[in-house]
């Protein structure tokens, strides 16, 4: 048997961003013992990078807002392949989750009458995002962290889960290693919540950090859960493009919410050229009207820069492809122009977008109060993930729950900005609540030692090839995968290219099986990268197979060979499941009929 330390918790939460922390807080408040596993240090998860805000129909800025408008906006943005029950719960519960954050110490920006201030964002009809300048994610994760540390949660920092353990159908624990010493850990648990975030590292240009290798997606898939909507990968329209070292770093949509405009090389506001039919009645006719909207005029409609992310990203790609891009292959995003309209524009921009000002000044020598930024799409978020029950967040595997980015359903084919932070809170809470309930209702299952031995053996194998005479290095394999996915399964997709990607993934599986690492088990990032490879390959394969199966363009999936939307595909989700022989099965699953009340809500909202 391999050496390992054993820890026992009623509920084990894997991942400590917004969803994981919120789940841990809820489970522990329900009176069960909770372990929280973080891949990095506590408080450093990707939630910290969220900028714009938390979408919740508080109606503090525009009294016309309510859950119904938020629900309808979310479904429209997701092109109606969302899980409508999740979208409903999310819209109804987000306001209470935001207020709760304030009770735990979050300090949001204020309206003139002292309430939580809300800002405009893409696809949201009214100003809806509770925010703190452009560092909302930091405020959120710190609030949850500082509240959570007094709840008696056992935090396991810098620890990565290798595999989930099962007894029959039910999940009974997880086998992991700590980064610092490279020792194995066995976590026994009655229920497990996956909250591991996204898959951004499967692509070369990404706003995601090294951590986002699809761990939760892959753990759940190999444990028998289903992944759905994996073809829907969100390319955020505005990442930095220059200099090369910052390529992909996020530029918040808040820039456009505050009046920033997108321009091509002829200095034309190209977003006015292509407004999708289903947004025409909600979009401004003129630049003047768009500006009035950003200034809070309730009779105006939003500027086309605030259309959904999938659409804005594609328009940018079109401008670049047709030769109207900026020098480094992007377009211009200009907020400095507002000095024509506002007397104190410089100060205004620095107050509303402090970290953007800072980021461009320090990393690109650009003063955004005076000059336009150069921006282009960056891999940002995956709408797809573990299929869960809308109310409880439990997957098909008894005792295995998922919340946040690694779970799927709420966003459909495209996520609206701001709906992620609220998703983390609403469904993090629900996952924690129902996982605690599950733990109370069920005993601990048995731990299968064969599974542990197998996981430990596989984890240590790369060291046996460390003499350098055999096996490829982990970083090289990772980079090759990233470049291939970027090139062949990116914003614009074609079947022949994606078939080539599948062949490439097959080849990279073989290389990954003989990956070699140097050094020892102590804090060895090369080893960690090698161990993450199989997760990355699993999710890359899921994305590619699902994207091939959906023979239409919808939301974040744009097929050059099927350029329009199809009614048939509007009624289904694409799912992947693991076959008994280890291969990946692709299924088409029909979306349940929406109840009449919700259909009415959508109709009312036009």
């Amino acid at each position, binding site marked *: 048997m391999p050496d390992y330390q054993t820890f026992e918790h009623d509920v084990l939460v894997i991942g400590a961003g917004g969803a994981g922390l919120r789940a841990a807080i809820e489970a522990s408040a329900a009176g069960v013992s909770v372990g929280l596993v973080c891949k990095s240090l506590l408080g450093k998860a990707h939630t910290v990078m969220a900028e714009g805000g938390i979408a919740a129909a508080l109606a503090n800025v525009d009294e016309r807002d309510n859950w119904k408008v938020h629900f309808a906006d979310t479904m429209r943005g997701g092109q109606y392949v969302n899980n409508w029950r999740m979208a409903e719960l999310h819209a109804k519960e987000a306001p209470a989750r935001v207020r709760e954050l304030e009770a735990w*110490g979050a300090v949001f920006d204020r309206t003139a009458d002292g309430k939580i201030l809300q800002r405009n964002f893409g696809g949201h009809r009214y100003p809806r995002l509770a925010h703190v300048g452009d560092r909302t994610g930091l405020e959120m994760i710190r609030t949850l962290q500082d509240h959570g540390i007094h709840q008696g949660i056992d935090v396991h920092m810098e620890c990565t889960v290798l595999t989930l353990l099962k007894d029959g159908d039910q999940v009974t624990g997880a086998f992991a290693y700590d980064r*610092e010493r490279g020792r194995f850990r066995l976590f026994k648990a009655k229920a497990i919540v996956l909250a591991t975030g996204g898959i951004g590292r499967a692509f070369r240009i990404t706003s995601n950090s090294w951590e986002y290798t699809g761990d939760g997606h892959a753990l759940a898939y190999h444990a028998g859960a289903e992944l759905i909507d994996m073809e829907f990968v969100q390319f955020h329209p505005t990442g930095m493009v220059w200099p090369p*070292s910052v390529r992909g770093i996020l530029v918040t949509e808040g820039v456009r919410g505050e009046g920033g405009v997108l321009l091509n090389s002829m200095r034309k506001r190209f977003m006015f050229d292509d407004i999708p039919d289903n947004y025409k009645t909600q979009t401004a006719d003129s630049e003047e009207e768009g500006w009035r909207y950003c200034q809070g005029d309730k009779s105006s409609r939003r500027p086309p820069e605030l259309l959904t992310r999938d659409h804005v990203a594609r328009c940018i790609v079109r401008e670049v492809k047709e030769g109207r891009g900026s020098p480094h292959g992007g377009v211009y995003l200009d907020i400095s122009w507002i000095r024509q309209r506002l007397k104190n524009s410089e100060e205004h921009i620095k107050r509303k977008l402090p970290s953007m000002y800072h980021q461009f000044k320090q990393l690109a020598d650009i003063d955004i109060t005076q000059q336009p930024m150069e921006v282009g799409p960056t891999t940002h978020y995956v709408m797809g993930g573990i299929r869960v029950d809308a109310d409880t967040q439990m997957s098909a595997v008894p005792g295995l729950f998922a919340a946040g980015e690694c779970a799927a359903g709420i966003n459909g084919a495209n996520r609206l900005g701001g709906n992620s932070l609220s998703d983390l809170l609403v469904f993090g809470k629900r996952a924690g609540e129902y996982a605690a309930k599950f733990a109370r209702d069920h005993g601990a299952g048995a731990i299968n030692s064969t599974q542990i031995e197998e996981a430990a053996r596989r984890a240590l194998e790369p060291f046996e090839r460390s003499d350098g005479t055999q096996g490829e290095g982990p970083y090289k394999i990772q980079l090759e995968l990233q470049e291939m996915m970027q090139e062949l399964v990116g914003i614009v997709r074609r079947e022949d290219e994606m078939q080539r990607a599948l062949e490439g993934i097959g080849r990279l599986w073989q290389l990954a099986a003989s990956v070699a690492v140097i050094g020892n088990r102590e804090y060895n*990032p090369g080893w960690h990268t090698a161990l993450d490879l199989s997760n990355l390959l699993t999710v890359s394969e899921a994305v590619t197979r699902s994207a091939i199966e959906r023979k239409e363009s919808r939301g974040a999936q744009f097929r050059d060979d099927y350029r329009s939307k199809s009614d048939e595909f509007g009624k289904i989700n694409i799912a992947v499941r693991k076959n008994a022989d280890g291969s990946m099965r692709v299924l088409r699953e029909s979306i349940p009929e929406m109840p009449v009340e919700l259909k009415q809500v959508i109709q009312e909202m036009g």
Partner: protein
Amino acid sequence: MPTATFRVWRGSAGEGKFVDYTIDTAPGMVVLDAVRRIQADQANDLALRWNCKAGKCGSCSAEVNGMPKLMCMTRLSQLPIEQPVTVEPMKAFPHVKDLITDVSWNYEVKKRIKKFKPRAPDADDGTWRMKQEDIDRVQEFRKCIECYLCQDVCHVLREHDMHQQFIGPRFLVYVAALEMNPLDTEDRLEELRDTMGVGFCNITKCCTKVCPESITITDNAIIPLKERVVGKFYDPVARLVQLFRRGKSGAA
């Protein structure tokens, strides 16, 4: 683009040596890019922390040419790269490996500080009302990304190793954010004087200088906290006023 040499500290638990790595530079490169390139091409097992690569998470703290810096926000163009650039771990915390230090002490300190305790809500729906100008100061403190560079440079911790008596600038800022939050009703002044050791800070402002978020740690957080402690425990006039007030509220 020219090449540059990085002299990186390699080793475990304090034992180690500088190792030179030469790489090709690229436009706009930051130190984190350079170190990650070394890791990918020349030293796969080089240990470092990083996450956001945009100055928002506070993971990649290190000492670059002897200065406490976030590696992700330190451009090569700001450094004399014709000479080797030294990259070392922070010094105020126990060394683990290469650029990694054990920062767990910080997490323990934070846990000891009394949590936020809001007053009763102002409105029936359970919400509060605050003016923006009343929270500007607190929001400045809440910009902190917990990179611990201020802890690293504070001589009370770095040279005098007083981790048991002094919580350091990061957590004085944390306490200030709680104490100055208009909603908070908790009192932390006694601990500030005793277990948190606010008196050990002698206002050299080194912490303020290295803060990547430009928080005016000393002037806006630590000095006002010192004044509050003095006001409460040492100022005879203030004590008299306090007694008087207490008497009045007792009578009412």
